[in-house]
């Protein structure tokens, strides 16, 4: 079976990027939008075709659809560029192209009156290209290259409103934090490839074929554990895991469709994908690293959920909710086993990634529709919107139900799998996960009730229902959010490649639904109509509440460490040394070079007879030195 055509899934968005990028300012905005949308549309079609073709064949083997050698260092070490198809990459292709297509369509309406429309679509296409290249990478190095491309396109899009200082600052922050994490990723890649002698996933995902020496240790952990921890650091940076999460809330400065695509559905789950991609390696060689993954996941999910309950910026609530949900996925991966039913965590994690993409993108697009109508991000200035935006209201409600885990919406199924996987392995983490399930329902419905019910706010302009170009993409996502849960996901994706029969674990399902309903109930009580009880409860929590509103002062801590300690105690002395010792030495070198170049200019006198003399002297010097050496 040939998958050659999959190269076009990548190339089409890239071509759209090149056309829109080069033709910037010449192509009318409308056309540039359609070029990008049609390109991603064809990519989407091809992705579905690939998925159909791949999953209908019985084997779940890895297929190398396209492969060229890019750099060959020696016979064993080379860097390829290519397309690797296996269950998770095909699944990711579907997710990325679907959400991209929806977001591209939505952006046509949302960005209509913005300047730089063509630039926007160029960057968006670049992002889709990079993200697609990341998931189909055949080797760690290709993945790293596209990983960085994803980072740069995210940077460009966060800073899209480049005349807005906060947006620029947010873009820089996102880039620097993720770059810092990627440093770990790169070192991890180099370490893994040093031990394995290859970058290829084909080899790396079959640990039995590798001959690692696990004997080498560093600070009590084997070096391969360190390598995988460093790789996870890269993943944690992109996926906004604690303590590298600080960029994500600020990244909401970007246009809302961008947040939906990049900071909810695709890029931020790259870290989950990365761990899933190398899962066999983690499981076989570094169980300790997996424990760290689980711990970070569990911590982040609770941490972010608590903060989400206290925020008033609609997009920031969603951002913290995203972090919390990704924490869920990481937790499930971290506690997963490898074979048979033990691998439920792996399947559950990716299942949740899949469903989350739909309902979180829908939430963001819904938020975009709301912001578009009321021109503010602050939910305290909203209220009673269900009358003004009835369709948006229904769609947003569907997404809230899905993320809260109410059956039969998609989130229920995937969350149930995660909870049962965690329950089977780790009771404490299960407690956290269950608590977060309740919290999630609470903060989502807090948002929902404040925005759509609550007090009847007076608006300067009466908010209007969104146009069809915004609603149709949201309806598509709503259908996905409702139906995606019924996909027998374990049949397609499992850690060991064999179909995993998953059924609903009723005791856990009922527990989680009860928790979710409790959360919704509290939110209903607090926020359906304006009341003072939330403030009283907030007061009773005291410091916890204020710290949560301040995001637990993590940003301030970063500032303290970077500005107070690193800059003052390390950077300043180094800067002095650099300026007065290293620069001085370099200046000396430069001055010497310059001086010599003045001294020798006489040779270039312009007189041919002198040239001839130098020429013949050169010959004679060569001859004489030869004779002298070989006396």
């Amino acid at each position, binding site marked *: 079976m040939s998958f050659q055509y999959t190269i076009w899934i990548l190339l089409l968005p890239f071509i759209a990027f090149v056309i829109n990028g080069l033709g910037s300012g010449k192509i009318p905005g409308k056309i540039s939008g359609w070029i990008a949308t049609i390109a991603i549309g064809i990519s989407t079609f091809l992705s579905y075709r690939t998925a159909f073709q791949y999953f209908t064949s019985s084997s779940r083997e890895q297929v190398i659809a396209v492969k*060229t050698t890019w750099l060959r260092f020696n016979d064993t070490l080379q860097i390829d560029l290519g397309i690797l198809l296996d269950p998770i990459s095909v699944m990711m292709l579907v997710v990325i192209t679907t959400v991209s297509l929806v977001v591209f369509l939505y952006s046509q309406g949302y960005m209509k009156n913005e300047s730089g429309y063509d630039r926007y679509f160029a960057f968006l296409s670049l992002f889709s290209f990079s993200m697609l290249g990341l998931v189909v990478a055949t080797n760690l190095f290709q993945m790293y290259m596209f990983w960085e491309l994803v980072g740069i396109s995210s940077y460009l899009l966060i800073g899209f409103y480049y005349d807005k200082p906060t947006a620029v600052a947010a873009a820089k922050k996102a880039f620097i934090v993720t770059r810092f994490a990627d440093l770990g990723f790169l070192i991890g890649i180099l370490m893994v490839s040093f031990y394995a002698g290859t970058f290829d996933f084909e080899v790396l995902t079959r640990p039995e074929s590798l001959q690692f020496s696990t004997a080498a240790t560093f600070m009590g952990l084997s070096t391969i554990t360190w390598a995988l921890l460093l790789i996870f650091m890269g993943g944690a940076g992109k996926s906004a895991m604690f303590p590298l999460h600080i960029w994500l809330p600020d990244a909401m400065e970007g246009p809302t469709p961008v947040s939906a695509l990049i900071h909810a559905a695709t890029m931020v789950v790259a870290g989950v994908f990365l761990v899933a991609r190398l899962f066999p390696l983690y499981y076989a060689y570094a169980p300790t690293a997996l424990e760290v993954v689980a711990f970070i996941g569990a911590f982040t999910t609770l941490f972010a959920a608590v903060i989400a309950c206290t925020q008033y910026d609609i997009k920031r609530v969603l951002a913290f909710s995203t972090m919390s949900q990704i924490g869920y996925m990481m937790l499930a991966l971290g506690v997963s086993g490898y074979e048979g039913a033990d691998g439920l965590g792996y399947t559950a994690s990716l299942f949740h990634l899949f469903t989350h993409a739909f309902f979180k993108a829908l939430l963001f697009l819904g938020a975009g529709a709301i912001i578009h109508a009321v021109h503010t991000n602050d939910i305290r200035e909203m209220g009673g919107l269900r009358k003004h935006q009835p369709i948006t209201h229904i769609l947003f409600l569907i997404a809230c139900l899905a993320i809260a885990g109410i059956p039969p919406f998609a989130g229920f199924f995937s969350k149930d799998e995660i909870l049962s996987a965690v329950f089977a392995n780790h009771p404490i983490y299960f407690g956290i996960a269950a608590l977060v399930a309740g919290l999630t329902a609470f903060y989502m419905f807090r948002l929902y009730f404040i925005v759509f019910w609550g007090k009847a706010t007076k608006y300067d302009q009466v908010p209007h229902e969104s146009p069809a170009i915004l609603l149709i993409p949201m309806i598509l996502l709503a259908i996905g959010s409702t139906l995606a849960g019924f996909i027998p996901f374990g049949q397609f994706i499992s850690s060991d490649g064999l179909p995993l029969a998953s059924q609903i674990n009723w005791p856990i399902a009922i527990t989680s639904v009860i928790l979710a309903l409790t959360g919704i109930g509290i939110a209903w009580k607090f926020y359906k109509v304006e009341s003072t009880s939330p403030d009283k409860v907030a007061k009773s929590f005291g410091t916890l509440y204020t710290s949560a509103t301040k995001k637990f002062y993590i940003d301030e801590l970063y500032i303290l460490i970077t500005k107070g300690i690193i800059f003052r105690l390390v950077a300043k002395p180094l800067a002095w040394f650099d300026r007065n010792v290293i620069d001085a030495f370099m200046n000396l070198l430069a001055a010497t070079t310059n001086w010599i*170049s003045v001294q020798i200019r006489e040779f270039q006198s312009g007189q041919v007879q002198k040239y*001839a003399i130098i*020429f013949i002297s050169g*010959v004679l010097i*060569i001859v004489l030195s*030869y004779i002298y050496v070989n006396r």
Partner: protein
Amino acid sequence: MSLQELLLMRHEWTLIGSLLILLVLELNFTDEGKTKSIPSAAILFALVTLSGFLPSQSGTLFGGMYVTDPLRILMKNILNLGVLIVFLQSGSWLRAKNNYNRITEFYLLMLSSVIGVSFMISAGNFLMFYLGLELLTIPIAAAASYEQYKSKSAEAGIKLILSAAFASALLLFGLSMLYGATGSMYFSKMIVTADVLHVLGFVFFFSGLAFKISVVPFHLWTADVYEGSPTNVTSYLSVVSKGAAIFVFVLLSVTLFETIRQVWQPVIYGTAIFTMTIGNLFAIRQQNLKRFLAFSSIAQAGFILLGVIGGTALAMASVIYFVLVYVFSNLAAFGVVIAIEQYSGKININDYNGLYHTNPRLSLAMMLALFSLAGIPPLAGFFGKFFLFTAAAESGYYVLLFIAVANAVVSLYYYLLVVKAMFVNKNESPIKYFHSDYPTRIALSACVVGILVIGFYSPIFEFIKQLCLSSL
């Protein structure tokens, strides 16, 4: 001689054919229609270049005087591409009033020179080689003084012919010694040993060839001639004539002179250091872009010697690959200089201040060209240097490599000076926006595509490497 055998010389036949066709066409052009030879020459030469890529066979002709094989054909094709770009860039200059009556003359001189290049690369005998070399040089000396009405151009012509005659004399002197010592002029029959007469012969021969490559201390003509010649001739000199000499030396170093490796390796070692360093030191001080590019091309020649010194298949491949990259990078830089010189007559680095704001695309092309020459990834020039350095490292020349890397840093400085002038420096009256003619744009775009693509498309290097492996 059968037709089959004649076809072995396809490059030469097509070149001679197009030269004759152009001559006949010229006779039929009216006085007003002289410019028709510009497109004619470009089309004819494009056909020549294309026909060079058709599959061909290996073999020898004229009792071993003429040799052809896939590697030599590749070399000719690379240089033909360079000539084609030079032709495309020449149109607007030739249309200028002063040159109007002698347009065809320029093409005839260039074509003769290219025929010399072809014969020189395919030579199987020193006499054949020498004829090719002279045929390459003499028409170019005439072309250098093409703009008779400018004293600089006349000066360039006379300097080139005097220096070249001098170099040729020494080269012939060397050849006569080699002939006397070995009793043959055929590469295949000569057995060179480390005997003193052989070594003397080699050194004189080398100096003559090094003159063409602009290796220090045989480089002094370069700056004056590059500056005075019409810029199109300069770009030909810096790319095609230099490339041809390098190709011949690479070929001979692993065949005929293979036996005296221990002699030529130290020679290359020393001259490479001097060539890189002196080229760079002079380039730093230049204000005139043509002189600047002259010294930069001397420094580049020093880097090329780094690949030559290995004497292995990989080394050979790295040199050929580097020349391919160099053709595109250097001709892109020259293309921009030519376009701007034609429009404004300005040629100094200071004149380029603020160019980005008025001519962004030209500035970008220039920037890519200079970055490629400096060897900044991911442009083709980076991969070219990377393979050269790899070849030198493989043969264990670590000290030389270190000096080369240091020189690469210095070269970055002066390349960046030009980029800074275009992008950063302010200018009250920058060169105004202008349209260059279509052939120039096509040539520049081809160069830019080459700079961007060659490095990424790895099969090119693999192909060259396979050819070199199979021909050794």
